[in-house]
C-alpha cells in the first residue's frame, strides 16, 4: 500500500493510496457522477489531459474489456476514486483496472474522501491538479507552472483519413476527438463512414460525395479550434444533412454566429433531465460539457433551441431554421449512457435517407 497525494492548484491536499501507474501526473480535474461506464469515461477523448474523480464509491467490478473502449488508450491523465475493485471477474474482462492503468502509464489514487473533494470542486470549478508522491512546495510549484495546452483537438484528431466501411449511406465524420461510440452507432445503420481529420478541406469532404456529415465530439475550448472549420461548416450545412455532437455542436453554433462560453459548473454525468422542446418530453443522456451556448445570442441567428437541461436551463440542442442541420450538446451514443438518448442518430439517418431517396 503506497501513500500518494492529490494536490489542487488552490493548495488543497488529499491523501490517498496509489493504484495504476506510479507516475506523477498533471491535468485539469473534474468530477463525474455516473454510476456505470467507468471504462468508457476514462477512454473518451473529450477527457484528454484531464483527471477524473468518480463520485460513485467503487469502480472496476465489471472489469476492463475492449468493447467498452472509446479510444485505443485511456485519455485521462489520472483517476480518483474511493475504492477500486481489486480483481474483477466479468466474463468480458481482459484485465483489472489496476493493470489497465499500469499498462498505459496512468496513475490512480483511491481511499480518499471523494465526496468532500466533489463538494469542494463544485464550489471552485475546474482547476489544475496533480497526483504526486509527496505534496511539497516543489510539487505545487510544478503544478502552478503548468500551462494547459490549447491544442487538444490537434492532439486527439486522427492525422489522416480512414474508412469504416458499410453498405448504407455515405457518411463523413469530421474528427475533433472522435469517440468510438459514434462509429458504433453509425455502424448500426450500416453506414459507409469516412473519418477525416479536423483540418479537412471542403474539397476533401465533397469529393467523398457525402450523404451526411457528422461533426464529432472532442476535448477542449471550441474557440481554440482553427477558424477555417467554421467556414467549412457554413458551406457544408447548405449542401448535406449535418449532425453535430458535443464540441461539434459548439462549432456548429459558432459557425452560425451563436456564441459559446465556459460553464460556471460543468456537467459530467448521465442523470440530468433534458427536455426536448418540440414534444416537451424528458430524456436522460450522458453529458460531458465544459462549454455552453450563450442563450441570448441564438435569437438573432438562424438556429433555434431543440433541447434544454432542466437543472440549469443550459442549451442541449440546436437546429438550423433553413437547412437539414442540427446538433446536440449531450452524447447520443450510449457509450456509456441511456438508450433513449440515441434519438438524434435516428433523426439524422432519417434525414439522410429521405434526401438520398428523393
Amino acid at each position, binding site marked *: 500500500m503506497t501513500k500518494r497525494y492529490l494536490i489542487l492548484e488552490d493548495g488543497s491536499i488529499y491523501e490517498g493510496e496509489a493504484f495504476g501507474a506510479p507516475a506523477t501526473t498533471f491535468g485539469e480535474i473534474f468530477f463525474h457522477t455516473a454510476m456505470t461506464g467507468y471504462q468508457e469515461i476514462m477512454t473518451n477523448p473529450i477527457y484528454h489531459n484531464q483527471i477524473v474523480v468518480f463520485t460513485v464509491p467503487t469502480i472496476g*467490478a465489471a472489469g476492463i474489456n475492449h468493447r*467498452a473502449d472509446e479510444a485505443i488508450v485511456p485519455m485521462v491523465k489520472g483517476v480518483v476514486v474511493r475504492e477500486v*475493485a481489486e480483481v474483477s*471477474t466479468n*466474463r468480458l474482462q481482459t484485465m483489472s483496472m489496476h493493470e489497465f492503468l499500469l499498462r498505459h502509464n496512468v496513475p490512480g489514487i483511491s481511499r480518499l474522501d*471523494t465526496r468532500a473533494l466533489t463538494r469542494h470542486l463544485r464550489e471552485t470549478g475546474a482547476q489544475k491538479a496533480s497526483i504526486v508522491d509527496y505534496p511539497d512546495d516543489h510539487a505545487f510549484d510544478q503544478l502552478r507552472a503548468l500551462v494547459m495546452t490549447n491544442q487538444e483537438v490537434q492532439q486527439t484528431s486522427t492525422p489522416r483519413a480512414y474508412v469504416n466501411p458499410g453498405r448504407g449511406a455515405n457518411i463523413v465524420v469530421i474528427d475533433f476527438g472522435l469517440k468510438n461510440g459514434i462509429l458504433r452507432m453509425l455502424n448500426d445503420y450500416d453506414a459507409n463512414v469516412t473519418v477525416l481529420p479536423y483540418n479537412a478541406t471542403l474539397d476533401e469532404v465533397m469529393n467523398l460525395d457525402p450523404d451526411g456529415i457528422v461533426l464529432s465530439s472532442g476535448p477542449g475550448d471550441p474557440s481554440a479550434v482553427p477558424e477555417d472549420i467554421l467556414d467549412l461548416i457554413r458551406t457544408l450545412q447548405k449542401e448535406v444533412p449535418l449532425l453535430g455532437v458535443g464540441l461539434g455542436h459548439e462549432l456548429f453554433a459558432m459557425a452560425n454566429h451563436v456564441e459559446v462560453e465556459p460553464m460556471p459548473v460543468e456537467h459530467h454525468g448521465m442523470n440530468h433531465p433534458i427536455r426536448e422542446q418540440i414534444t416537451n418530453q424528458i430524456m436522460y443522456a450522458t453529458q460531458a460539457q465544459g462549454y455552453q451556448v450563450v442563450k441570448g445570442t441564438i435569437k438573432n441567428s438562424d438556429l433555434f433551441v431543440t433541447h434544454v437541461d432542466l437543472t440549469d436551463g443550459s442549451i442541449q440542442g440546436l437546429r438550423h431554421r433553413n437547412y437539414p442541420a442540427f446538433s446536440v450538446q449531450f452524447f447520443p451514443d450510449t457509450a456509456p449512457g441511456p438508450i433513449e438518448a440515441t434519438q438524434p442518430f435516428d433523426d439524422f439517418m432519417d434525414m439522410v435517407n429521405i434526401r438520398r431517396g428523393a
Partner: protein
Amino acid sequence: MADKILLIGGSANGFGRETESDAASYQMTSALLKRGYEVYLVDDNPFSFTASRNDVHLEVLELTAENIVKVIVANGINAIVPTVGGTTAIQLTYEVEEIMGEQGPAVLGLSSSVLQASQNTKYLQECLKQWHLPSVQTRLASTPGEVFDAARELEFPVFVRSIAPQGQALRLQAEDAEELDQVAELALDRSLTHQVNVDKSIHGYKEISMIVMRDFRNTNLLVGGIEDMDPVGIHSADSIAVTPIQTLADPVVQALRDTAFQIARGFNVYGLLEVRFAVNPEDDEFVVTRIIPYYDRKASLLEGATGYPMVPVMTGLMLGDRLDRVHIPSSYAEHTAALEPTMDHIVVRFPVFTFGELASAGIPTNRRLDTIQKSVGATLGVGRSLEEALEKALRAAHFSNRSFSPDLMGKLTDSEVIEQLIHPQDNRILLLLEAIRRGYTVDELAELTHIDAFYFYKLANIMQLELDVKEHPWDYEVLKSAKYYGLSDGLIAKLWGTAYESVRRYRWDNNILPTYKAFEPSAGEFQESVSQFYSTFEDENESKRLGDDTVMIVGTGAFRLGDGAAASYVLANVMDEFRNLGYQTVLLNNNPHDLTFIPQLSDKQYFEPLEISDIMNVAEIEQPTRIVVPGNRIKLIKSLKSAGLNVDVLVREKYLETTLTAEKDQLLYNYFYDGAQLHPMVVSRQSNRKVSIDSTEQIDLEQVQLPEMPADATIGFYQFVCDEADLSTDVLQGRMRPMPFMQLAFLDKVSSADWIRIMIRYMVGQPTDADEVVVHATPILNWPFNHAVMRYQDTEFKEHLNIVDRLDNGQFAMGTTYEVD
C-alpha cells in the same frame, strides 16, 4: 377527477410485508388531503399508523373484495389506490374490477393488464413476448427427441414441466443429458396430452431489480437498481441486496433500464414500477421474471438509499402530474423529482430471520434458504465501501443474535461447509467467511455459490482486516483502516481483548472520529436540501447539530418475530407527538421499511446500527434535550445518563411468557402510570390466539386494589396479569409487567383516547386538561364499542416455514388483525 379516494390497506404484517406500505400510505394520504381529496381507508391491521389519523375515514373490515365493494358503493368512492397495500391490495383491486366492471371506480396509476401481469407469470411472459422483450425461454415437446432438441437449443440446465398433468404438477430440473433421460419420459407420461414444456433454467443467474417512474406522457425515470448478492434460487427478500449495482457493466445496466421503461410503457403505468430481472453471468443475456407495480420493500429500500421522494412523486403521477412538474414537498430541491438519483455511497440490505427465536422456543425449523421467503425483517448498512456497508448492516441485524456467533462455523466439518455453500442457510455470510478462512479460492467459491467473485474479494478484505486488527493491538494505522472499512468498536475491542469504551477512548485520543455524510440524489453535484445522514470515517463531516431543543428517538431496528410492527407504530406516534409539542425530532434507526422513517415525523434521520457507540456518537453531535429509548437497555441508558443526557425510557415487554400452556384465558388489568400513580384503563383477556376487550363486562376498576409499582418505574403502560379468569374486584394473585407494544398499539387504536400521545405529554410534564379527564375517567368512557378483538394467525408460518405445530402467537405476533363491533 375523483374527489373521494379509497386506499386499500394491506391487512396483517407478515413475511414479505413489514410497515413499508403503511409508511407509503401515510405519506400519500397527506399529499391527497393537501390536494383537497377526501381519503378513505379499509384496513384491519391494528398496527396501521395511517388508520390512526383522524383526517381519514377508516373502515375496519376484513379485506375482502365484497367488503371493498360495499365501502365503494356506500361512500360513493370515485377512485381507488392499489399501490400502498402490498399484494393484498393488488389482488383485491383486480377482483373489485371484475365485480364492478364499468361501474367501478377509477383505479389510479395501474391498468388492469398490469394488475393481472403482476399476479400471473404466464400472462406476463405472453405480454413480454408480444413486445419482443426477453421472457423466460420455453419450448413445447411431445416426444423425448423433441425434449432433447429443446435442451440442445436452450442449453442445460433445463426444467421440464408436464402440460395438463395427472396429479400434482411436476417441475423437474435436468442438469445434463443423463438426468434429462430420466426426466423426459416421466414428465411426458404425466401429461394427459403427452406434452411438456421445456424451460431454460435461470437458477444461478444474478437477480436484479430496477425501479422506474413513468408519467402519463411517457416520461420515464430510473430511481435505481438493486443487485442481489445471492443468485436466483434464493428468495429476493432473503438475499443480501446491494445498491447501486456493482457487478454489471454499463451496457447491461442500460439494457435493463430501457426494458423496464418499455414494460412501464406497455402496461401504461402512471407511477412506480419495479421490474425484476435474471441476468446470466456468462453472457449478460437476461430475462424478466416479475413485475411489482406497488410500493414494496425494494421501493422503500431505494427511497431510503437515494433520498428520492418516491411516494410524493408516485402520488402525483397517478393523479396525472407530469414528472417535470410533479408536486413534491417544498423541502426538496426544485429539480429533484426529475433528476435520476445517483449515489456516492453503497447500501446493503441484510435480511433478518426467524430461526433463532423459533429455536429458543423449541420449534424445529429447516434453516435452508430457497425460493420461499423465510426472513421477517431487514436492516440497512450504509457506507462508502462495500465492506463498510456490509459490516454495518450485519452489525445492525445481528448484534444480539446467537445464531450468528462466528464460533459456530469453526465446528463444521469440511463436507458440511461444502453442503452449506451449495444449499445456503440464513447465516451464510459467516459460512462464506469461514470458507475463505479455510482456504477455498475465490473461483471455487464463486462456482459453488453462484455469487459474483467481486463479493468474495470484499469478504476476503474483511477477513484480512480482522486478522490485522487481532495481530496488531493498539496500532494506530490498523485501527484507522479498520474503522474506515466499518469494523465496530465492539468487534475491535473483542479482538484486542479489551472493553469497547477503551477502544472508543483510544480513537478519540487519536482523532479517529466518525464523519457524517448526507444522503442526496445528486452525489454532491448540487446543493440539495438534506435531512438524512450516515456515518463513515473520512475527512469532512456534513452533519451539524440540528437545534437546541431536540428530541432524539432511538429506533428498534429490524423486525423480528414479536413486536416489530407494533413498536414501529408506537414510535411513530411518539415522534409525531413530540413534533406537535414543538420539538424538533432526530431519528436513529436502520430498518428502511419502518414507519419511523416517514419524512413528516422527523427533522433529521440517521441510518445507523443501534449499538451503544453508534448512539453515543450521534448524541454527542446532536446534544438532544431528551432521548427516547424503547425498552430497558440498561447499559445504553447508563452511558447516556453519564453523558448528562435526559433519557425517556419506553417500557417494553420484549419476551412474553407463553400462553400456550394456559388452560383458561388470562385476565389483564391495564393501567397507565403517570409517574406518581396508576390509572386503570380497561380489563382485557388474552388467550393463545387473541386479545379481546368486552366493554359490557367491565367492572369498576376503581374498586380493585392497585398493584404496587416499584419506586423507579417510569411513565407508561403496565398490565397486571392474572391467571384466574373470573372477573372480580377481590385482591388478585398475579404479576405486573409493562404492557406489550402489540397490546398498547391495539388499545391506542380502539380507544377514543390517544394513549401514546397522552403518555408523551405526561413525560414532558404538559398534560392537557382533557388528558387529565381521560386519565381519571371511568374506564368505560374511553371504549366506544362493545367488543374489540385482536387475532393472531398461524397460516404464514405454515406457508413460509412449513411449521405444522401450533404456535404461541401471542409471543410471535405474525398475521395480526383486529375487529370491533
